[in-house]
């Protein structure tokens, strides 16, 4: 993975010093609340319902075991011994003290980490596929490009005070889009053109929140050398023309929609004409330099399906289940990609205790070259596990609470921290996740239902991506009481779509019962092997609606 040189290191250290001074001036009342707010946000520090929340950047989800141990250690010493992995591959601490944050940042800088631009109206952490670099059907490894974007976006002097936050995600495979790129402000799809040159299909104006939209294509192919000048052009147009009078209409999606993609594209092209070919054009030497950081680890020459694996698959239904759900095909024979799920019943989705973080770091050292990834679905990934070590890893994962074999199933939920922590939330989300986990605890049934994305957000801001869940649950406030609106038919992959609201919202205790009814409709209507989303797309919303709102006999 990327390693800082003296330049990168100096920059994060100067940032720590700057934030230490800003915090000192705020505590001395030299900086007003209002002035400190965007400054602390640009360093990932929110003031939440009960305490500040610090969001630590995990660039495109890559972590070394050393970094994860540091996170474990920080969460133990400065917080309540756990952290929350977010859908944008970052880590959130829910209980740090504001005055401790400069020290936390200094400790992060020791392991080449920071909290730069994890919040605020600026360019946020770039995200990508958690399987980057280890799957067979990838066009190229997207991580060098993510690192290029990370550096370009970090302390970009022109774009630190945009109309609203700005999120970029990169995908590099035709077969899947695990980074939900179409619901980002900019989605980049790595492509090769007919001449074999690498470039990007650029999608703009996707996003969730109050007005969810799937992005539209602004360019079918931008050569990689031109990526940064093209991004500069898009964001320069947005910075000047995006709405600033209403924060709910300030994302780039609203501008793209208002102008229409043709007009927006022509403005971007006019801007780009001035920038294209200038200094920010990326030379081949830089691609080579960055690619060098993501070279293959020293894989052993191995056969697929070693006997220790196949015999356990035959003997142990539990292991076979875990293998089927929680591991993924690797580009190298004899290896497998393993997801350590953070979806243990009784634990909030995406949460990991300090102890679990230490354990995951140890597992990565033993089984996966000391590196991990954080996924958009709020799990951890060991990308390079020998197949003949899978049984051993499974045993160790079970012990640590990482082996819940439900990856991609109904209970592998995406869930925001909700009203238990977040000041913005209208309703709690974690108890809903717990209720669903309790109700749907029969693995055979979950397996029979197959792949279903269920996403929960505690408010319209949609951190839990409810709009793009096959089933989405949104917490709403009705005269001081927490209710839940259910939507259906969302998707976040290449077939991205925004879910439709089923109807009036439900009381908290009803949610699982309603989901059960939706599942019944699916099971009754599905043709063989048909996924929930495909059945929905075929039969439409009506039967689901009728079942959900049918009067009890």
């Amino acid at each position: 993975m990327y390693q800082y040189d003296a330049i990168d290191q100096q920059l994060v250290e100067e940032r720590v010093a700057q934030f230490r001074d800003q915090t000192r001036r705020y505590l001395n009342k030299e900086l007003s609340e209002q002035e400190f707010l965007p400054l602390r946000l640009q360093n990932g520090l929110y003031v939440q319902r009960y305490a500040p929340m610090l969001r630590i950047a995990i660039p495109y989800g890559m972590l070394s075991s050393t970094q994860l141990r540091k996170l474990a250690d920080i969460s133990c010493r400065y917080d309540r011994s756990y952290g929350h992995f977010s859908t944008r591959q970052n880590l959130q601490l829910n209980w740090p003290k504001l005055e401790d944050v400069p020290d936390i940042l200094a400790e992060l800088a020791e392991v080449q980490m920071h909290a730069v631009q994890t919040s605020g109206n600026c360019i946020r952490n770039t995200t990508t596929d958690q399987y980057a670099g280890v799957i067979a059907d990838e066009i190229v490894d997207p991580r060098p490009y993510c690192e290029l974007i990370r550096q370009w976006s970090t302390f970009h002097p022109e774009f630190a005070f945009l109309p609203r936050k700005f999120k970029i995600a990169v995908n590099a495979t035709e077969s899947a889009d695990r980074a939900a790129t179409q619901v980002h402000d900019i989605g980049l799809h790595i492509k090769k053109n007919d001449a074999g040159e690498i470039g990007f299909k650029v999608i703009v104006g996707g996003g969730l929140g109050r007005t969810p939209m799937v992005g539209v294509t602004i360019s079918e192919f931008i050569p990689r050398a031109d990526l940064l000048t093209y991004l500069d052009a898009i964001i320069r147009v947005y910075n000047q023309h995006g709405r600033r009078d209403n924060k709910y209409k300030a994302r780039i999606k609203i501008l793209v929609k208002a102008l229409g993609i043709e007009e927006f594209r022509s403005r971007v092209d006019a801007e780009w004409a001035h920038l294209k070919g200038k200094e920010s054009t990326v030379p081949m030497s830089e691609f080579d330099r960055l690619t060098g950081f993501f070279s293959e680890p020293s894989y052993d020459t191995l056969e697929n399906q070693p006997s220790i694996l196949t015999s356990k698959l035959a003997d142990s239904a539990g292991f076979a289940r875990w293998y089927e759900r929680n591991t993924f095909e690797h580009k190298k024979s004899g290896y497998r990609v393993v997801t350590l799920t953070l979806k243990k019943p009784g634990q909030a989705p995406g949460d990991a205790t300090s102890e679990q973080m230490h354990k995951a770091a140890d597992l990565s050292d033993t089984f996966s070259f000391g590196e991990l990834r954080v996924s958009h679905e709020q799990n951890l990934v060991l990308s390079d596990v020998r197949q003949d070590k899978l049984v051993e890893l499974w045993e160790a994962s079970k012990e640590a609470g990482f082996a819940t074999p439900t990856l991609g199933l109904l209970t592998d939920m995406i869930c925001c921290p909700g009203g238990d922590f977040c000041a913005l939330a209208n309703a709690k989300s974690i108890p809903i996740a717990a209720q669903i986990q309790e109700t749907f605890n029969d693995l055979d049934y979950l397996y029979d239902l197959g792949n279903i994305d269920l996403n929960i957000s505690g408010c319209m801001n949609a951190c839990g991506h409810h709009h793009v869940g096959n089933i989405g649950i949104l917490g709403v406030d009705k005269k001081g009481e927490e209710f839940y609106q259910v939507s259906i038919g969302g998707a976040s992959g290449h077939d991205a779509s925004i879910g439709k609201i089923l109807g009036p919202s439900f009381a908290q205790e009803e949610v699982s019962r309603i989901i059960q009814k939706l599942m019944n409709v699916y099971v009754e209507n599905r043709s063989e092997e048909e996924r929930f989303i495909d059945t929905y797309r075929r039969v439409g919303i009506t039967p689901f609606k009728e079942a959900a709102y049918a009067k009890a006999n």
Partner: protein
Amino acid sequence: MPKLIKNGKIIDNTYVWQQDAEQEVTSNSIVPAQKWLSEKDTIGSVVGIWLEAGDGVEFLQDIDINQFDVIGVNFPAFTDGRGFSYARLLRERLHYQGEIRALGHFIPDQLGYLLRVGFNGFQFNEEVNLESALALHKPFSIAYQGDVADPRPIFLRR
């Protein structure tokens, strides 16, 4: 005499930022750019013009802007970042050589970024202590992107 920070020094501010378009214009005035444009044949000599957020810079394309000693850029709120693009475009696209002066509700903690996009004059609101602001009058010693001071991104300088 009111003060401002220019080129890293606290100096007397001898210009008058004409915020009210009806106010009398003198040769010391920094007048609204739109006003100057509509009255340019009669307005006489002024030290400069200033841009309101939303003005953009395109309308200055066919004007010799180097006749002005100063071009001001107003920040209606410090969170309104349009002025960052304006300054950069004035320098890089319109090749403006004179002073670009930040006006309005920007804050000292933005100085690092403001300098990098081409501002060199900072007329803070009265409550800002200029001595303290001067301590923040420097960007980080390293920048990943090119900027007005050095158009080369880090990959051309590593």
